[in-house]
């Protein structure tokens, strides 16, 4: 009957436990083969790279590889912190993420709340469909839209300039407008897709609560405050924790596509810096140290945010 179907085998504490285990594996070998097929790329490309992290503590030489290594301890980290650009990059990364937290994060929640109030189901679906679309566009494309629309000659921004009686200029070349542009673009891209989770949570709120509140004479705002918001609090907190976990990560593509030499002061972030230093200048150990630094900070922030959430009485991520 050895056809590979899985059956349960009781595990006794007898001396031939290993033999039983082997029999089990052989019996179910089909499934284990399949598992193996998937594990090979997974281990190779998601676990094996961790082996390379060690070069953050070495003077890695590409010709010598991992064999003839020279350990240098925290040298690269010290160099990183002393780098004149480091503070600027840290500040930029944090600023952008902070702005996203303030503007982009709530925009999805607000949109979800508004969508939830729509009475026409078909209209609601239409708005959702349209709002999800930008999520599927790459930042090269979205950056393209931004660049085109901000063009002083042919973009619609020109109409705005002329209406204000000002001479059109390219706003993307000026540092003071850069964050506004980036955040606006991010809202355009992420607002719609972000509503999915919140709408699902909103749908899960017991309708009877609303009815009871209405019977008690609660108006719209009271219902919002007392029923709706507490109903999605769990999801919001979860999302917030996850967001905190990437507080120093800013996506490479959007910064790369939209930054120029004239805006580098505010546009340079860890991902673009790492790309320049690691791939461009081929300073491998330095770049590895930078990546490790980022990972450690991210992990710490997630744990911190989780801890704070739990202290505030909420359920955390773990």
């Amino acid at each position, binding site marked *: 009957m050895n056809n590979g179907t899985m059956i349960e085998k009781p595990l006794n504490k007898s001396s031939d436990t290993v033999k039983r285990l082997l029999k089990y594996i052989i019996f179910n070998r089909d499934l284990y083969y399949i598992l193996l097929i998937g594990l090979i790329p997974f281990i190779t490309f998601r676990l094996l790279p961790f082996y390379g992290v060690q070069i953050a503590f070495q003077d890695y030489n590409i010709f010598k590889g991992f064999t003839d290594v020279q350990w240098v301890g925290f040298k690269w980290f010290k160099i990183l912190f002393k780098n004149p650009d480091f503070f600027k990059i840290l500040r930029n990364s944090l600023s952008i993420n902070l702005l996203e937290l303030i503007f982009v994060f709530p925009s999805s929640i607000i949109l979800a709340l508004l969508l939830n109030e729509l009475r026409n189901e078909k209209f609601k679906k239409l708005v959702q469909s349209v709002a999800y679309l930008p999520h599927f566009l*790459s930042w090269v494309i979205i950056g393209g839209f931004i660049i085109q629309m901000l063009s002083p000659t042919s973009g619609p921004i020109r109409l705005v300039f002329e209406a204000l009686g000002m001479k059109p200029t390219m706003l993307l070349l000026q540092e003071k407008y850069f964050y506004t542009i980036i955040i606006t673009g991010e809202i355009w891209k992420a607002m719609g897709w972000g509503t999915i989770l919140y709408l699902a949570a909103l749908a899960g709120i017991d309708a009877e609560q609303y009815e009871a509140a209405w019977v008690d004479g609660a108006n719209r705002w009271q219902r919002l405050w007392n029923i709706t918001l507490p109903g999605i609090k769990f999801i919001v907190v979860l999302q917030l924790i996850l967001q905190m976990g990437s507080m120093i990560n800013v996506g490479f593509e959007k910064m790369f596509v939209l930054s120029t030499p004239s805006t580098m002061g505010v546009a340079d972030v860890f991902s673009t810096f790492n790309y320049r230093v690691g791939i461009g200048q081929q300073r491998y150990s330095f770049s590895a140290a930078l990546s490790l630094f980022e990972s450690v900070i991210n992990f710490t922030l997630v744990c911190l945010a989780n801890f704070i959430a739990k202290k505030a009485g909420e359920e955390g991520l773990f």
Partner: protein
Amino acid sequence: MNMKRSLGDIIFDTINNLIMVIIICIMLYPFINQVAISFSSNTAVISGKVNLVPIDFQVKAYRDVITDRRFKTSFINTVLFTVAATFMHVLMTALFSYPLSKRKLKGRNAVMTLLIFSMMFGTGGLIPNYLLIKNLGLVNTYWALWLPALINIWQVIIVRNFYQQLPESLEESASLDGARQLTIFFRIILPLSMPVIACISLFQAVSAWNTFFGALIYINDPKKRLLQQHLNDILQAFIVPAQGPDVSQSEQNNSVSQETLKAATLMCTTLPIVFIYPFLQKYFVKGVMVGSIKG
């Protein structure tokens, strides 16, 4: 709910609907604007007249784009790249999730823990990955982009959850008839899983179509360039823009012929996604919901 609408309710609903209409307009505006520009004449575009409707309708920009060798190369490359990436990824994900859906399989929990751990900690950084790819000799090949993307843990979870919902009796009766696991998988499980397969196929296809950073690092051969790289090349020309209406005529003409070209290239890159989108949008949302709520 049998609630009577107060005046306040009616006002709120009207404003809400209005806001939604505005949001739709904002979402669609960039597309409409660029489509209009791409179909207009150069002179109309640089004088800033084109907004929602093409002026001096012409298809020259599109003709220029389609006949450009670099565009053709990168477009065809990206189509083939996307098809291959999607096929491989979906096959691998569908297969890998199958044993993981068997709750009673020994070792399953260990593997799941490994996956979750990997999800939390990322992959070690830019350079460690680069070195791995380099040591495997995959630089400047598409494999450098396909292989790391073979397993996406979110999608494994989504597919696994789906499999877990399928009745065990199906598979049991098949194995009683003597079928091996692989046969059961391909003949029974997979055909029943089409909705979730469609969902992850689309996610992967879009992700592959949008590949930029990976291509930037690993693809150096100009003949292998992908579409997003090409688009980026075309768009980066904005660094030397025309300053405004009082730039000299020849400078204007040069940057002008770029404007409609840029718009047309942008639309050619975007349109495949936009075309597919309405038909398959329901699959995306269902997939995300299944994955995030149950996972």
